């Protein structure tokens, strides 16, 4: 099974250790993981702003980089949602459709494809608030959102349960958006920041030491908000926790 590792631009530039943890974690399961060297971005900043034409060349590059793999795995629900649902600015050839179908977010890849049973190397003895990225939650169905009257399930929490010592705290508004919203964060900065403040306040009130998420983008925004407010929260990607980060 050949895996193409997609490291989103945020992760590449700001959170390289998330990319490293993803790579190492996949390798722990004996997978052949390759990182196509010419990769850049999934095209989301442009398509979310309505600028599909402007995203076309970036989308084409993504497909070119990843078409040769059995699976494409990325540590971001948001970027995977873009690829799966919105990579439509270029002609939908067999190759394009194929890449879109075989692109998985790390949590769902571990949970649904590899169906991993245990993580003997992972221990994280801390109180943790899990932050659901909205695209991961409602776009690629990581968990049952609080609005839906169906039985509860959560793939990321199922994985975190396999990590020794993790204590997950309950939030007042468990899946309220944190206000990042991609370009929303710079075009509507006041509302975006207020949502972020409320989010980190909810984490802190719940007694969390760490915020864990499958998306670095939400956490980059929340971290900026927490630092501005002086809320002593630490942020760590789920890939790092599952890979055995000692924190």
């Amino acid at each position: 099974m050949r895996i193409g590792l997609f490291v989103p631009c945020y992760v590449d530039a700001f959170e390289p250790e998330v990319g490293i943890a993803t790579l190492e974690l996949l390798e722990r399961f004996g997978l052949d993981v390759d990182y196509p060297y010419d990769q850049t971005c999934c095209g989301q900043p442009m398509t979310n702003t309505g600028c599909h034409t402007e995203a076309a060349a970036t989308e084409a590059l993504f497909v070119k980089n990843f078409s040769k793999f059995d699976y494409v795995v990325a540590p971001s629900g948001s970027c995977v949602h873009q690829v799966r649902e919105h990579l439509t600015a270029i002609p939908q050839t067999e190759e394009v459709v194929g890449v879109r179908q075989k692109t998985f977010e790390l949590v769902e890849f571990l949970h649904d494809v590899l169906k991993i049973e245990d993580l003997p190397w992972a221990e994280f003895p801390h109180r943790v608030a899990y932050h659901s990225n909205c695209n991961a939650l409602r776009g690629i169905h990581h968990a049952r959102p609080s609005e839906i009257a169906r039985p509860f399930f959560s793939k990321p929490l199922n994985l975190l349960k396999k990590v020794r010592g993790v204590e997950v705290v309950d939030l007042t508004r468990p899946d309220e958006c944190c206000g990042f919203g991609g370009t929303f964060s710079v075009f509507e900065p006041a509302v975006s920041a207020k949502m972020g403040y409320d989010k980190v306040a909810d984490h802190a009130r719940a007694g969390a030491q760490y915020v864990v998420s499958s998306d670095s983008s939400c956490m980059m925004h929340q971290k900026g908000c927490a630092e501005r407010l002086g809320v002593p929260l630490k942020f760590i990607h789920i890939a790092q926790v599952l890979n055995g980060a000692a924190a």
Partner: protein
Amino acid sequence: MSEDLAGHEGSSESGMIHPEVAKGADEGERGQDGGRLKHAEAASRPIGSPKAVREPQPRGAKIRGDRPIDQAEAAERFLAAPLHQKAHDERLWDLRKKRDTAAHGIPEWEELRELASQIKTHTLSNLDRYLEQFEAAAKVNGVHVHWARDGAEHNRIVHGILRDHGAKTLIKSKSMLTEECGFRHYMAAHDIEIIETDLGERIQQLDDEEPSHVVVPAVHKTRFDVAEVFARTMGTDPENDDAHYLAESQRMHTRPLILQADAGMTGCNFAVAETGTVVTCTNEGNADLSGNVPPLQIHSIGIEKLIPRVEHLGVFLRILARSALGSPITQYTSHFRGPRPGSEMHYVLVDNGRSERLGMEEFWTSLKCIRCGACMNTCPVYRRSGGLSYGATYSGPIGLIIDPTYNKRKYSTLPFSSTMNGSCTNVCPVKINIHEQIFAWRKVLAEEHQIPLLKQGMMKAAGAVLSRPAAYRAAIGTADSALKALPRFAVYNPLNTWGKAREMPEAPRQSFHAWYKQNRMARKSSTKKDAAE
């Protein structure tokens, strides 16, 4: 349905309440049994403390003709009024939680949503037939039926009916359709006095402000604001913000106007094709006053309000109040079928852009909306911005996808006032894919150059860099300047809005790319070399 001034319920989230807002129980708000009063609609908290700072109510978006609404600017002013913002957010979140409890309490909830959605799909797909059936049944019942192409025609028709009867005063219950038509402003210009009978809507009318929410139109106001409005318009005590005092003052002031009105008007929640019946759902019974007291009654009906049969009503009544307020049903569900003896009854069926919307492949399902407001209550942006920040008849998520159908330029910015988190879609009782339509509108607006040139230019520049690996690497390779430490899209934003309220992320010593090259590519090539040897 309207905002409740008297309602109170204890909250488990006392830790979230602003100290001024939480302080002290309001003894005036206990029922006869001594318990706290509970009400179905948006519980408000007493501000009470004499030391509480009286914060002026933030006003809505600035309207400048057809120029694009600056929702972000109005939202920023709303956020700068923390008492208002906090009360607004908590009240509406409370409704969302009540909605969850009510919805999750019905095992077949998700099936009900699906059923309601399918009934609407069917009805909208056969709308011409059902409208004709409705008209025929109404005529048999003795109702006069009128058709209005747009808001202006609606207003002219109603004015004509009033003129024919020499009517100078009209009481009406809340109707978003008449807001669309600019009905109150039109009638004011023609010397007809309009009296809103819904309490929240009456507050908004007296304050000469549009409703900020489809169900709770004055939810953005605190009791201080209401006390101020009533003092200004009815001469009440401006220092007294007791809910009973305010509600009773309004009642004493308005009741005689209701009893003496020449004509009455309601909107319509559901129009039943097979019976020709108009159904309204309220918690105050005010639609009944409007429909039953004056000798002339007029019902304004958006053509998308049709449902085929009475049996379908059961599905919608079960989901409407639960979605809106978390209550099983509204206090009053009124069926208007034919004129009372000695009175006259009119229907005005209004298109006002609906036929055109029905032809929009990506957006026609927005016509399924039953105006429950659940998408607003759950929307984190709406709760922190206030409904008036949208500068449009319809605010919140449903507004973002309906408003541009009325005016693409004026409302071109609205679909961007969203994080597209998708919660709106999940609470929608008729399963409108609201957040996907917001996404689709952004594409339409960009293609038609209805987004700012600056924004489109930034995206073009971003696309150029992100599609060229070498350019991308050059841009993020050296992370030592402050500019380069920004997220990619922000780099192209000449106004650095990220850092205003948030700390910048620190750029690490090495990108993942560089790490990979150093730690893995070297190893891989040496492994390959070893294998070759």
